[in-house]
């Protein structure tokens, strides 16, 4: 069982360090890279927590889609002089928020009495598929409509910004 623990700790540390990296770096491109590292390590953690389906979705949607979007954003908005904006402003409020949230959420997590983990069923994908189409049909349809709205809205806004 040692292997599992080692893998877990590596992903755990990778995610944490990536987050710290985003904080420290001033360069947007590095930040995007650190974000990718963090997402991938999270996907790994999901696998460890028997959420393999979600891990794949994460990799596809996030690592694939969102990061690409971010990349386009960075390329368009990064002006040639590449002057790096100084990061440290509103330091005090940031620290305060960070401390408060960290303390509170850890309180919640500590008070939480975890349920006994259940070993996974055979194949989640098929089970999830059925559930999507039966119990969660309403949510599924609604999320579809939402995506349509976002698609139309975002593209309209983006188009008008170019003209």
């Amino acid at each position: 069982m040692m292997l599992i623990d080692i893998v877990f700790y590596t992903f755990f540390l990778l995610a944490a360090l990536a987050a710290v990296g985003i904080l420290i770096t001033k360069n947007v491109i590095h930040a995007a890279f650190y974000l990718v590292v963090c997402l991938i390590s999270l996907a790994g953690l999901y696998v460890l927590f028997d959420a393999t389906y979600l891990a794949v979705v994460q990799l596809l949607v996030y690592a694939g889609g969102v990061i690409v979007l971010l990349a386009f954003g960075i390329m368009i908005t990064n002006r040639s002089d590449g002057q790096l904006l100084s990061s440290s402003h509103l330091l005090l409020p940031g620290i305060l928020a960070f401390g408060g949230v960290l303390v509170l959420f850890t309180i919640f997590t500590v008070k939480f009495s975890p349920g006994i983990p259940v070993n996974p069923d055979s194949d989640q994908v098929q089970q999830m598929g059925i559930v999507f189409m039966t119990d969660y049909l309403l949510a599924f349809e609604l999320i579809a409509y939402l995506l349509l709205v976002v698609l139309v809205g975002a593209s309209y806004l983006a188009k008008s910004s170019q003209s």
Partner: protein
Amino acid sequence: MSIDPVYGLGLSAFLFSMGLLVIIIKRNAIFVLIGIELILNAANLNFVVFSSADPANTGQLFGVFSVVLAAAEAAIALAILLNIFKFYKSTDLHQLNRLKY
């Protein structure tokens, strides 16, 4: 696969706080977007950790929905960012102060 879920929750709390810190401190709009992605992922992690104890695995399902929604949000954010860039020629949040009294 008995990994103690507390670590997961701890990591999610840490990621959430780091994300919040990034959002508040950074001046570049892209950083703030990245920060938002981070805190949404932290919430996702939470769901995954809890769904490990749930036979019906609803947490994971929620995670899927939440990932999709995060993507949608990123799309909108970038669309609006493009607009802002057109007017302000920069993504520095300090310059966004036209909304005076």
